[in-house]
Structure formats: structure tokens, C-alpha cells
């Protein structure tokens, strides 16, 4: 590939990505009342999407090979516990990530 072809490839990827982000806003213009089904999706989708994102983050964790997903499991449990106790986003994230870092870099290696 020459430089021009590379730039075309990058531009196409950028445009396609933008299309996925802009599509709902373009299709459902704000001046018309949105279809009821869309309103329902707007309410019901987000909780489901966050479930999907958690699975997406952990998709490559292998339960069959060492360390059997243990660091991820423990990390997630720490995040959940910290959040249930303090309900402070930063505390939960930093605490859970800290424990995970120690596990993967020092303990379960």
C-alpha cells in the first residue's frame, strides 16, 4: 500500500465509525416525536448494554488455563464489594484495579 491508499483506508474506517455513532441521531431527528418502540429501547437498552460491555472486556479471559480467570474474578468482586460499601465510583475502580495489578504482576504469575 502506498501512503495515499493508507490514508483512504484510515478515512474509510473513520467515516464508518462515525456512521455507527451518528446513525440513530440522523434517523430519528428530534423535531418528530420518536416512535414508541424507540423510547422503550432508550430505556431498556442501557442496562443491557453495560452487561454486554462487561462481557466484552472479559471476553478473552480463559477459564481453562492458568490463572483460570482468578485475577479477573477477584478484581470484579473487590470492585463490587467496595462499591456496595462506599458507593464512590473512584474508590471502587482504583481499589479493584489495584488488587488486580498486584495479582497479575506479583502473585499469580
Amino acid at each position: 500500500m502506498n501512503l495515499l491508499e493508507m490514508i483512504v483506508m484510515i478515512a474509510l474506517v473513520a467515516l464508518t465509525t462515525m456512521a455507527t455513532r451518528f446513525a440513530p441521531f440522523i434517523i430519528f431527528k428530534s423535531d418528530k416525536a420518536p416512535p414508541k418502540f424507540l423510547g422503550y429501547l432508550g430505556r431498556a437498552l442501557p442496562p443491557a448494554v453495560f452487561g454486554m460491555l462487561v462481557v466484552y472486556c472479559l471476553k478473552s479471559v480463559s477459564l481453562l488455563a492458568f490463572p483460570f480467570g482468578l485475577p479477573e474474578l477477584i478484581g470484579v468482586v473487590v470492585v463490587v464489594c467496595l462499591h456496595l460499601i462506599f458507593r464512590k465510583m473512584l474508590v471502587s475502580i482504583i481499589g479493584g484495579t489495584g488488587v488486580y495489578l498486584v495479582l497479575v504482576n506479583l502473585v499469580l504469575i
Partner: protein
Amino acid sequence: MHIAAIKAAFPHTLPIMAGFLFLGASYGVLMASKGFSFLFPMMTSLFVFAGSMEFALANLLLGAFAPLEAVFMALVINARHIFYGISMLDKYRAMGIKKLYLIFALCDETFSVVYQVEPPEGVDRGLFSLYISILDHSYWVIGATLGGIFGSLIPLGIKGIDFAMTALFVVILLEQILAGVKNLPSVLIGLLTSLCALLIFGPSDFLIPAMAFMLLALTALRRPIDSLMRKKGRDVS
């Protein structure tokens, strides 16, 4: 007004700063190791701003010129953004010219925060969302550019900092559950359909089937879920 919005936005971007600087730098280092100038990771981060797609693009750029393949891959990897748009239609309705950038920069992490976090009293939602988006975007571009410039000189020996992103999504998922029974069916549908798709299709191809399963399940169960959400929704608000 702007200062107050930045002050309110910044703390919410801290976990993303850690994750994006690290992941962005890894991406820049990867591009440098494949012989690309730092301008490539810098420009793709600036204009594409979709992490997993940028990693995939690194390999695409090393192959033959394949524009259709690039478009197809971007559609498959990034189709999930359509769901973010649908979820933000209401919150981003009256944003004026800012709306263009807000939509452009709506990556997974930014979506999670602008959807979940309410701006503090007296801070404009539009500006709050705008600065969260700008900050997240800058972290990614800065990380990728530094990675591209310094390449393997950057010590990325500590692995796993990107777990901060997983932790972010776990916290927000938990907040959805804590918000009441009304969200439970959706949360379960999201987790179960994604896990099923992952088991059937494997880690690299599961996103589109997961989205399809999710839409099917939410459509099939619309009546009970919608009445539950509306009923309980009133209690909360």
C-alpha cells in the same frame, strides 16, 4: 461556567485517564514496532477514536489495499455504538452545535460516564458531557502519540492497567442494578445474551450476534419490561 464544568467533569475521567493513556500508549508502541511514523497513531486516534478498531487497523494497514474489508470490519466492531446513540437520543437532544462533537466522540467509556453520571447542581449538562468527551479523547490521543514517538522506550512492563476500564463498566452495571428492580430484566438479558453469543461464536465474532440476541429478547419481552420500568420509574423520579 466552563471552569465549573471542567472541575465537575475531570474526576469522572480519572479511571479513563489511566486506562486510555496506557492502552493508547500500547497502541502507539504497536504501530511504531510495525514501522509506522507517530503521525499514524496520532491521526487515527484523533479521527477514528475507537480503540479496538484502531488495533485491528494496524494489521489492515500492513496488508493489501482492501477498502471494502476495512469498512466491513469497522461496521462489525463498531456497530455497538448504534445502541449508545439510541440510549443518548434524549439526553443529547438539545445540545446545539456541541452535539456534533459529542456524538463523534461517543466511545464506550465516554458513553458510560455521560449516561450514568448526573452533573452537579448548577453545572450545564451539555458542557459537562462536552468536557468528559474532550478529556477522554485527549487521553487517548496523547497516549497513542507518545507511544508512537517513544516506541519501546516507554516502560509498559506493568500489565493490566486496562482493568480500570472493566472496573468502570462493572461499577456502572452495578449502579444500574442498584437503581431498582426495574433495570434487572435488562441487565440479565444483556449479560445472558452476551455470554451465550460468546460461547457460541467465540471472542472475536460475538458482538453482532450478542446485539441481535439482545434486541430479540428485549422486543419479545417488551410488554412486561416496559410496564415494570414505567411503574418503578415513577417511584424513583
